[in-house]
């Protein structure tokens, strides 16, 4: 049982990190960025390719991988989001354009084979791979009947540190204040002289970079990197997390991540079989019906 709780904590951290990116963009733009899961995957895939195909060290690969995700954030903003804002398009259109970008990213990686047009990006096609086991030291400790693996253990402090830094930035820096102003009321913020567009760019870039970090940690801890890691399980779980925690709330995303991890593992232990994911969504459904603003979200203005 203790081992299962540990499992919940580790996967919960990854859910949290992933969801923070989602919730940042939703908080500021009121848009669900459905390309986020593809960027998550891209972070893992590019880092893997750099290590295995280009023989870089893990540290260098991580920096470049996260950088590539940040660049992808620029693409999301300039290609998928800004043109729609300029045309005063209904926000639902942004769902479609980000879906389109996600499709391109996943397909590009999936078609990465020796000899294909995307071989510079990835050569393993639709296969699932893992980082070379000896890439970084990864000792396993057995304590009290529990098994602790270094790459999994390290996720928790990394997640918490990142969240604390993010929290500090949002609460105490000028950038953070600007962000909150735009999230509150972009019209007023722009009237007060804030460069709203620039704030948005930075938000999306930051969110994508965080997604990339989550992807790398995921690939490392779960020994699974494939074109489908974002789409298959993380994407909808990310949604569940931000609903549970409250949309637009960063502490909410963190709390929601751990909560979801715990609910899933408890469901497995109690019901014994794969009711796990179904229970997660039942929980989400209940939360929405009973307390739509989630654990930490502000009271909804949209309810009549």
């Amino acid at each position, binding site marked *: 049982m203790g081992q299962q709780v540990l499992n919940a904590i580790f996967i919960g951290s990854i859910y949290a990190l992933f969801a923070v990116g989602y919730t940042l963009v939703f908080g500021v733009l009121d848009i669900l960025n459905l390309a986020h899961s593809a960027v998550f995957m891209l972070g893992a895939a590019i880092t893997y390719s750099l290590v295995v195909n280009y023989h870089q060290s893990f540290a260098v690969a991580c920096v470049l991988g996260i950088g590539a995700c940040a660049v992808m954030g620029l693409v999301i903003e300039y290609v998928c989001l800004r043109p729609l804002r300029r045309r005063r398009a209904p926000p639902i259109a942004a769902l479609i354009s980000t879906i389109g970008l996600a499709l391109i990213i996943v397909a590009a990686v999936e078609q990465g084979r020796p000899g294909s047009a995307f071989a510079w990006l990835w050569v393993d*096609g639709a296969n699932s791979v893992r980082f070379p*086991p000896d890439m970084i030291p990864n000792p396993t400790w057995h304590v009290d009947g529990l098994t602790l693996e270094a790459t999994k253990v390290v996720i928790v402090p990394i997640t918490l540190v990142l969240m604390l830094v993010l929290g500090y930035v949002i609460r105490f820096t000028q950038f953070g204040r600007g962000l909150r102003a735009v999230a509150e009321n972009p019209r007023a913020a722009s009237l007060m002289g804030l460069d709203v567009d620039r704030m948005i760019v930075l938000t999306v870039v930051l969110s994508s970079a965080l997604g990339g970090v989550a992807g790398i940690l995921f690939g490392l801890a779960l*020994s699974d990197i494939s074109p489908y890691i974002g789409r298959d399980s993380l994407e909808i779980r990310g949604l569940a997390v931000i609903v549970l925690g409250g949309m637009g709330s960063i502490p909410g995303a963190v709390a929601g991540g751990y909560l979801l991890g715990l609910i899933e593992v408890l469901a497995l232990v109690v019901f014994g079989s794969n009711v796990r994911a179904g229970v997660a969504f039942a929980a989400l459904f209940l939360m929405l019906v009973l307390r739509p603003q989630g654990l930490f979200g502000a009271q909804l203005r949209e309810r009549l």
Partner: protein
Amino acid sequence: MKRDRVILGLLAAIVLAACGTTSTSGGGGPSYAGKTIKLGAILSITGAGGVYGPQSRDGMKLAVDQINKAGGVNGATIDLTVNDDASLKAQSAQLAQTMIQQDLDLALLGPTLSNSAVGVHPLAESLKTPILAVSTTGIHIVPDCNFPAAAACKYVFRDSLGEQTAIPDNIKSYAADKHPSTGVLLVAQDDKFSSDGGKIVQDTVGQYGINLLAVIKFSKAESDLSPYVTQAVQKKPDVIFITSLGGIPAKIMSEARKLGWTGQFLGGNGFNTATVSKQAGADGMGARSASAWYIGNTFASNADFVNAYKAAYGKDPDQFSAQGYTAIKIIADSAKRANLTFSDLAGDRDKLRAAMETVKIDSPLGPFQFTADHDVKQTVWIIQMDGQGGFTLLHEIPAS
């Protein structure tokens, strides 16, 4: 005069007989010179099935090239079109229809995934077109493609060793070697391949004295399998059965080893590719499965295939390439003997079907024939992962 008529008759007979025999190249059948044998393959090149489709395609294309360069099938060239079904069963079925009714292919190959086959095979059967499955190993593929209807499908064949044969052979051979007493089954319940394999495991283990302590189901899309593996390991079984494919076996193996479990992994066809062995690495060492093909076999029909494949593509073949290659050889051999007219498509399809039933060739899989149920009749190779991305051969189980 009577005698003249007899002599004329004899002369005519001799002339006819001579005409009949001069134009064949290598054994039996009229000349197809100048004709084209149109074949269509429905494979998953994109989507989740894209881990298998490209290899099947490469194996097929190699065979087609080799045959065409050596003079074709009795002089006819093979024209193979490969279409991608994106791992979607709707596209798979649509492709089947257009290839049969519009492209007028003589026979079809594929589709890659069992989920697609469930729709495509009955369609081919109802349109009376021979279809040869090259990678589907689940149950109810042959002969009962219209399960639960019991009537056998006449036009559906497969050259991919089914799990119904592979899994029991693997369990039997391991039980004879090591006499395990307990096991746990981990099965992806939303994956037909894995579920079929799981069912076979459950039906078989009792016969070999293995007590199945638990059947743990998970969802194939889940990336984090640690809670399930934890559950499995906590029961302390001798054997863990893994019937999944793709990235899942390696993940389960590495989790289990990290938790300190030292028992035996037994699997199905999902273990049989170098990708899986490489991903599992040292954690997979000793994991056993029954395979339709082993790269290290030295008999000519395999050695030649492996060398030609490496020369053409710059990489090693795998089980799917071997089965794709064999499939073309099966069809080519059958076409040779089928007395095709090239003017009556329906009749030709039926003749090809009949000829396929009696095929008997040497292939990279070993000597190959079909059973009465159009299923595979070949040697089964018991292999184990060597911990370094490859396999070693443990046992050979000849076809019964």
